[in-house]
């Protein structure tokens, strides 16, 4: 982390800004974890507890990462709620119904995610409609198409597919009977996105896009291309989760996936990404996701009323936004003092 701030100090002033929201998210995570560790006891602190919330974190996390990048770039993507079931239904159709090889089905599902992302990106960059509205529209369109095609082709809205041993091992198994393999995929996605946002030069473009898109374009950043790629990343992430759920639970429902919309945004915001764009970090998003998952699962180990869980998540969200503002003012004043 120290390397980050050093690099940030002399190359790009956003670097020092990135570091601060993370501190807030990290403290938040520690407080929440300790709270549930005390209430949840030994089971929650042990492997069953960790696997329980990591399984939740992994799935929402794979979607929250690209959603976070989009929000740093100043855009929203609500269509993920429809892409999750659409991808799992597509894969179930290709593999389960038409009995094609698993790879074809998986590529089909992922391809659908990329395609929806491309549509989102094109609509956002070619029109003046805000991404919030575009992706709501696309979400309903994708929901309708998924339902329509599933009923048209199979006459049913719930499809099932029993994956082969290799597919199951890669996408839907529980290591040690409890750790979902998607946790490792999540770690992989974290590494890739960390490189993309914080190490590769393209990462600064993402921040610039959310900071001031007009200046970014004038400075030679290919804003349209970049935005479209970001939307395709979130489509890909959502499709990946949909396929992983199909391989895990062996059934694809046309409905479902809706919770991912708000859950992923909450993870990102708790992780210190500014709603207005221009600031945020991968480590923050990961911490936000972990905090969200700990609250979600901790509730059951703590034997509290689950509705209290929703209250805690709501309170966390508000606290996160409030502290983001505070950290932002702090960061800007510190920077000016140093120079």
């Amino acid at each position, binding site marked *: 982390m120290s390397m980050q701030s050093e690099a940030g100090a002399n190359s790009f002033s956003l670097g020092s800004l990135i570091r601060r929201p993370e501190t807030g998210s990290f403290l938040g995570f520690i407080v929440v974890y300790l709270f549930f560790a005390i209430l949840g006891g030994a*089971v929650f602190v042990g492997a*069953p*507890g960790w*696997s*329980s*919330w990591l*399984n*939740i974190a992994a*799935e929402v996390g794979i979607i929250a990462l690209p959603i976070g990048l989009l929000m740093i770039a100043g855009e929203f993507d609500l269509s993920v709620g429809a892409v999750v079931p659409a991808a799992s239904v597509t894969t179930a159709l290709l593999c389960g119904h038409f009995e094609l090889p698993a790879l074809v089905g998986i590529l089909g599902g992922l391809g659908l995610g990329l395609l929806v992302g491309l549509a989102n990106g094109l609509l956002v960059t070619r029109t003046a409609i805000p991404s919030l509205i575009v992706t709501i529209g696309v979400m309903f369109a994708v*929901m309708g198409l*998924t*339902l329509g095609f*599933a*009923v048209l082709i199979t006459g*049913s*809205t*719930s499809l*099932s597919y029993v994956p082969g041993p290799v597919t199951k091992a890669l996408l839907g198994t*529980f290591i040690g*009977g*409890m750790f*979902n393999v998607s946790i490792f995929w999540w770690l992989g996605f974290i590494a890739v996105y960390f490189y993309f946002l914080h190490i590769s030069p393209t990462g600064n473009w993402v921040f610039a896009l959310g900071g001031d898109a007009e200046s970014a374009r004038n400075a030679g950043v290919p804003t349209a291309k970049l935005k479209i790629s970001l939307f395709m990343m979130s489509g890909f992430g959502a499709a990946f989760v949909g396929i992983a*759920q199909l391989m*895990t*639970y*062996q*059934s694809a*429902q*046309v*409905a*479902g*996936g*809706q*919770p*991912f919309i*708000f*859950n992923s945004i909450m993870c990102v915001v708790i992780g210190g990404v500014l709603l207005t764009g221009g600031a945020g970090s991968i480590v923050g998003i990961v911490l936000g996701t972990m905090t969200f998952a700990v609250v*979600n*699962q901790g*509730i*059951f*180990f703590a*034997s509290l*009323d*689950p*509705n209290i*869980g*929703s209250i805690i*998540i709501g309170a966390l969200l508000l606290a996160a936004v409030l502290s983001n503002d505070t950290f932002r003012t702090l960061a800007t004043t510190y920077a000016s003092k140093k120079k």
Partner: protein
Amino acid sequence: MSKFTRLAATAATAIAVACTASAVMAADIYVIGGKPDDPFWSRVKKGAEDAGIVAQAQGGSVTWLGPQNYDNLGPDAAELIRQAIDQGADAIVGPDWVPEAMDPAFKAVTDAGIPLVIYNAGGLEAADKLGAMNYVGAVDYKSGYAGGEYLAKAGHKNGACVNTLPGAANIEAFCNGFNDGLKAEGGTGSTLQLPATAFGDATAVAQAVRAHLLKNPDIDAMFAIGDGDTNATVSGIQQAGKTGSVHVCGMNFNDSILANIKAGSQDCAIDQQGYQQGFFAVSILNNYVNYGVTIPTREVLTGPGVIDAKNVDQVIEGVKAGAR
């Protein structure tokens, strides 16, 4: 707005009266139901549409009205009922999911003189209270009761009911029935309430079940409502390492649930035979509007039917034939 509604209602009454007056009538029947992409409701819808073939042959129609999502179920469904009145329905079929929110709308139906059948949820009690002709459906409480009784009789007496939609009257009735069914056979029951953010997310349900089982190791019986929740519950039990020691019954079924029953990872499924609900509710109304004939049997029960290892093959044949 309300003036318009009343006006439309009066107009609808006039049409309804005019319709019943002449001998041969075309019945435009409006059916309020779940989301058309809900696996269970797509079967109910198919039943309603199949009965609608007769209505169409007689010049009538069947229109399905379902909510976009279940976030605001009661008020949304009440709105759909009023929409059906406004569109000039000759007869209306609807479930009494959230009585507090929906009963005033159902009252508006009967006040307007439109024949009404309550189906799927509410029971004969709701039908009587609202002045409906009949109730078609499984009684949720009895369905849950059958599940609890089945598991307790097999010796699994400490149960938990998974509730992913706290506040919905029918889900609570399932859970109460399940717990009472256990108690009747000398067991005990509780309810695992999930936050609203979990509905429709299999992983969230599975992890909640698993956490609950780890926290409460005495539980050996579980009841889940709906295909998706049941599959997720089975996975949660597997992840808790309790396959074989925790037994599951679920409401409704699909291919993977039948496979699970055959494989032994699920003990039983309670079928409320959704196809029958849509089919008979529409048929009763169509025949009444067209010919004035009635079904004197009040409370037409379509369930509960228990599917377990003994009859699962027969049910699979039924699925293949398209009857279930």
